[in-house]
């Protein structure tokens, strides 16, 4: 298992703050689905134990559509989506690389993900939220 360090991030207005434990080399996805394109989400998927909400539980609102499995959480005040519960990894979290305080010291490797054909590709992401990943 790769060594991880805790990194902080948040929405724009500061109401929602989180921390995620990330390895030095981070595998990230830029998804082309209807939702991710509109909010510019860049995914860093982590297991449950490598994510913590530090402030702002009461500032978060949740949007769902289609199957309702994904919990699209965003800040009520500034609309920013710093993280959410993805349908591909309901046992983990997807953190938005755009919302990290800094990516200094991280080797962020952003690959395209074909979310327009989600059913054919979602299984490729399943390992990212495994606790032993």
């Amino acid at each position, binding site marked *: 298992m790769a060594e991880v360090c805790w990194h902080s991030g948040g*929405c*724009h*207005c500061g109401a929602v703050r989180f921390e995620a434990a990330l390895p030095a080399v981070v595998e990230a996805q830029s998804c082309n689905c*209807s*939702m991710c*394109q*509109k*909010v*510019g*989400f*860049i995914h860093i998927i982590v297991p449950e134990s490598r994510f913590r909400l530090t402030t702002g539980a009461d500032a978060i*609102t949740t*949007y769902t*559509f289609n199957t309702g499995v994904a919990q*699209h959480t*965003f*800040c*009520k*005040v*500034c*609309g*920013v*989506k*710093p993280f959410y519960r993805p349908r591909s990894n309901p046992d983990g979290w997807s953190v*938005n690389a*755009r*919302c990290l305080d800094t990516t200094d010291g991280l080797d962020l490797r952003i690959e395209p993900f074909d979310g327009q054909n989600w059913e054919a590709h979602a299984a490729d992401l399943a390992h990212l939220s495994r606790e032993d990943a």
Partner: protein
Amino acid sequence: MSQALNGSCHCGAVRVSFESPDLDAVAVFACTCSFCRRHGARYARDPNGSLHVTAAPGALNPYRFAAQAVDFWLCEQCGVLVFASQESPDGVRATLNVAGADIEALTDRPAQSMDFGEQPAEDRAARRQTMWTPLTLVEASPSA
């Protein structure tokens, strides 16, 4: 002849129609500020065009920060940043987030990164008044 491009936020509560007499000349910008970056926003505007927004009652939530000069309009239901507007002496002018509104004809264009951070506030206001699109906003339910 003016061409119209239509789009909406994700849930459909906010719909837009962007018209320009010269769509081929419309450029797309990615503002690098701390807010626009987090929303992955990519903007298009045309002072000779028009932006018509139809929003369900209560669907639009404004956000302001820093100089408080601009309203950033968010969909209350799905969180998508749809457009930004500024009151100008000649009316309200807006810039459209073509990513948020899913205007495919414009999201396909390469976005030029812009950093307005060093520009004085009065120059920014003047630029918006000159470059942004005249806005009309009506409230109506999505089925209307």
